């Protein structure tokens, strides 16, 4: 059984790249183009991991993470931020919101897979 991952990014190319890479690695992937859409999807199904961009219209990644953490189903779910910011403040912001960790952009498919496999095997 493959794990179901929710990939959230407002950039279609990034989202497609992430989804394609993860699918190629055998995961099941659902895409969402902003936090609001992702939150809606998350409420309807249980994802084993959520990958979210930080800067997005409608609902940003941090708000999404905060909201997800309040849902009983997602209290312990790994929520990873995809971010171009590598400054400690930005990371602290993510952590404070409830993120598990982050993946700093730009990353390549290999790095993405390696990270995901570390987290959910």
């Amino acid at each position, binding site marked *: 059984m493959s794990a179901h991952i929710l990939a959230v990014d407002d*950039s279609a190319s*990034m989202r497609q*790249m992430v989804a394609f890479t993860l699918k190629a*690695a055998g995961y099941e992937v659902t895409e*969402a183009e902003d936090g609001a859409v992702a939150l809606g999807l998350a409420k309807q199904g249980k994802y084993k991991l959520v990958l979210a961009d930080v800067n997005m219209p409608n609902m940003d990644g941090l708000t999404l993470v905060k909201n997800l953490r309040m849902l009983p189903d997602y209290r312990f779910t790994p929520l990873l931020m995809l971010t*171009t910011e590598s400054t400690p403040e930005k990371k602290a912001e993510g952590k404070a919101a409830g993120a598990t960790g982050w993946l700093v*952009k730009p990353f390549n498919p290999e790095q993405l897979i390696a990270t995901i496999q570390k*987290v959910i095997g």
Partner: protein
Amino acid sequence: MTLDLSRFHQTFFDESFEGLDTMEAALLQLDPAAVDAETINTIFRAAHSIKGGSGTFGFTAVASFTHLLETLLDQMRSGKRVITAGNVDLLLKSSDAVRELLHAAKEARQANVELIAHHQQALEAALATDGSAAAVAEAEPTPEVADGWRIRFLPQPSLFRSGNEPMRILRELASLGPLSAEPVLDASLTLVDSLPEDAHLGWQLTLAAPVNEAVVREVFSWVEDECTLVIESIKAVAEAPPGKPQLTVIEGGKGRALPDDRRSSDRRSGERRGDAAAPANGVAAAGGGGSIRVPTEKIDLLINLVGELVITQAMLAQQAGVLDPTLCEKLLAGLGQLDRNTRQLQESVMSIRMLPMDFVFSRFPRLVHDLAAKLGKQIRLDTIGADTELDKSVIEKIADPLTHLVRNSLDHGIESAEERIAAGKPAEGSITLKAGHRGGNIVIEIIDDGRGLNRERILAKARSNGLDVSDSMSDSDVNQLIFAPGFSTAEVVTDVSGRGVGMDVVKKNIHALNGQVDLASKPGKGTHITIRLPLTLAILDGMSIAVGNEVFIVPLASVVESLQARREDVHTVGGAGRVVRVRNEMVPLMALHDLVQLPVTSAPEHNLFILIESEGRKLALAVDELLGQQQVVVKSLESNYRRVPYMSGATILGDGRVALILDAAELVRRTAPALAA
């Protein structure tokens, strides 16, 4: 795993160019006096996405340039840098540079190095004015290498609640080298206040791997703030790992080999799935939020098919007309349903091609901004009705004529501030772009409050061009002269309006769209240009008329009325032309069969007319019979044949025959002045 990322390049470029457009529009909206946080955020987000994507897809030149842009924007966003008009200008120019870089990347060519370097310097200079950001360059700690590491890792109780898992961390450490772990129990733990979801176990770890401290820290990077972490180096000479109750967690090799196997076995099935899910070449799903990118050819194919369906449906309806309603009740009801469904389908399909006028309007703020600066004029641009929808093909073709007209207004219409003040007008000139529906048409207006057209200059220029003009011509006729070929009254040919393309081309382009352009101007007050366009070029509401055995379609938009004239209302003028009295107006008269020079089988009385109007002029067309109104799918005559005088195209009737569509504008243009003169 190596994946070819080039399949995402098209999407990346598409969204990046869109992002740049958004950025540009937002920048132009940005009022330094009253900064709107959301606008800045939008601009930042666009730069941010381009940077992220370009980094990921390996367009490093784009990424590094955008990084500067993003840094500047971030400072503005966080309030560390004030937003000035100069900054906005710099950002606009930088977005141009990004555009050039993206184009270069897309076309796999060398970017315009000079331009990029220039803008990069400007950006760097701007960033340097506030040292804090540019100097942020992290002082890299000198890496410390040791033979091994002793790590004390005591998670805070909340660790699990951030989705983290100590086992993952231990496994990751084990992947670096042999790892041994000793549990450390939380001494303060009491069963009463402990929750099962809290982390209470800590570890004393020994990692026998000669790696950098940074590598070890990286493993804990997600949980740094959620644990107590002490990392100490072990030198080769130091003692062996403490030996008491040891818990060998994971063997280094195994932890790595497993996922590798899994990957290779999963790849085959995974890739197949990935391929199926990946969008077809050039098609980029823009997401589940209700929009999808589709190549226009697909839509056009769909429209053509629906067009065929409409014809077939009309053919069926015609055939069914002879059926006995009492015997074929169900069939006829079904045909009625088909008729409604076909129409709805056609409408929905056509609406796919509709784009808001904003598509074109959005380019003008930038244009006005740049040109006003260049010409040293103060100009305010207002757009009204940007959400008016128009067929994509029309939108694309109207962009250039419209740009030309706006440039003209800017360059020749609006005066300099001094000149305006001297004339008692506000220093700031105004250009208004307006779009809206009127009847079955879209009307686009370009209104400026500039100096208006100069009648004397136009007349003088017309004379020098050898045109037949007189001083007694009406203002509107004089104004029409500027649409004559090779006409330009500008004293100085500036690089704004340019040479070559004149108003005649603008007019020609608009006519090619079945549109019309009218111009009104008051000296010293301004110029008002009105463009009328059909909603779409693919479908036309027409009136079908018969002349002899032939059927023609007259665009309904140009039909004023049909009338039955009395013989005494028809007069011959100068032995050549005829006119018909319509109420108190004498309208030139043409028999359609003469005009199209077709042999006519019947010899009707020709007292049935349809009155058409175009460009403010009327013409009465004598026809034999009015057959009714219908929507027709416009087909090109030129794809296999050539242009036919007085006809704008053809269509296929319900019985499969081809019928010509009359070009009202051309009819009026070619016949009315000949009679009036």
